[in-house]
């Protein structure tokens, strides 16, 4: 993915997290799990918000928590599912 596009996706992921789950992260690499920012409620809210915003379907069965470790890893994960920045 082009770097600018990837950065845009990260920015949008961070914006969704702030708007929909009230999670404000200092930077794209900040560890959300170590900071205790993700719990069941936040995770469900984020999954629904990402699916709505980026028109992708996140897997229902397999789950790798590391994909939700940071804004950067979430953006990578969404990109691997075909997500693109919303225009």
């Amino acid at each position, binding site marked *: 993915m082009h770097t600018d596009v990837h950065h845009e996706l990260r920015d949008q992921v961070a914006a969704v997290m702030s708007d929909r789950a009230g999670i404000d992260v200092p930077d794209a690499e900040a560890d959300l*799990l170590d900071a*205790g920012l*993700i*719990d*069941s*409620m*936040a*995770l*469900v*809210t984020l*999954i*629904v918000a990402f699916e709505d915003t980026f028109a992708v379907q996140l897997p*229902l*069965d*397999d*789950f*790798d*928590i590391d994909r939700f470790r940071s804004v950067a890893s979430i953006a990578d994960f969404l990109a691997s599912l075909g997500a693109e920045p919303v225009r």
Partner: protein
Amino acid sequence: MSRIRSLRQDDLSQVVALYRSYLAVPNVAAVDELRMAFEQVFLGQPLSDPSIPSLVFEGSDGEILGFIGSLVHRMRFEQRSVRLACSSSLVVSPKARQFGPGGLLMRKYLSGPQDLTMTDTAGPATERMWKSLGGSMYHLGSVSWLHLLQPVRAAVGLKLWHLGRQQRLRLVRPLCRPLDAVYSRFSKTDGTGDVDEHTEEQLSPQLLIDHLRLGPQQFDLWPDHDAESLGLLFDQIGRSRSNGQFVKKFVRDARGKPLGWYIASLLPSDIYRVLGLAATPGKEELLFRHVLRSAKDLNAAAVAGRLEPWLFEVLPRRTMMLSRVRFLIHSRDEAICDAVRSSKALLTGLESDVWLPR
């Protein structure tokens, strides 16, 4: 990588251990009772359905870190057959809470092929997650009623039950009697003498099927029982120690005409919990008096149940309304949700998981 998969027989020990450690309350059911109930209910007939299975959240090392139980009922919605899935016993290992397995299990479960998903024993956390996944609350169904017969013993019984010491209630009962006698003297609202001429018989599965929709209300959604499955379900409920004494009665008037039916349990806390009841139009109050009579005959300290619209007209004056748990629903078919929310769904405690040992 963690994964969500269907519950298997060899998961049961881990699931029961997880369940007990998650609840961590003195009154949690014993291992053997839970294991037997979980095996029968979540893996056996008539309530398990391989296409809407109970689910476990399995960590990358194979350890079970979360569980959600599934009870599936065949229903009729207007002219078609539908499936109701009751979500039950959602538990998560403390060491996995930051992974959010509870939410993932719920999301997976709600995405199943069932037509309607419900739970009527949810707390605030489940309610928030459920709503974020498109579910909603059935407000009236979230209200329970409680009618006290012997308030002191009811309070003591509940307290002892919460402490897991309900066996001591036998010793405490005589101590409650004087104060409860005073209460009875000043609350003469529970006369049940007019039911003497009626007869009660065991409510068989077939009798329930034949008289399921006795009342005046027209339902759009109702259980589609068959006698064999209903018999198995009765057996499962009756076998559980947590349900105490299981009572199911069909009531006829002096001429032998059906008056109604009720299903209830005298719990170890001395609370008589009504799981379902229905009355012939115009006989609602009489039927309810049978319930009260039955509670008194069994020496219950209080009678409780889930509120239904028609009960407003027959519940005794001194009845408390409580809203401690949430009745949540989820469906991709808005018409089904509307039927539930507008009380046009016949959902008794049999469709719930309230009778499962906890």
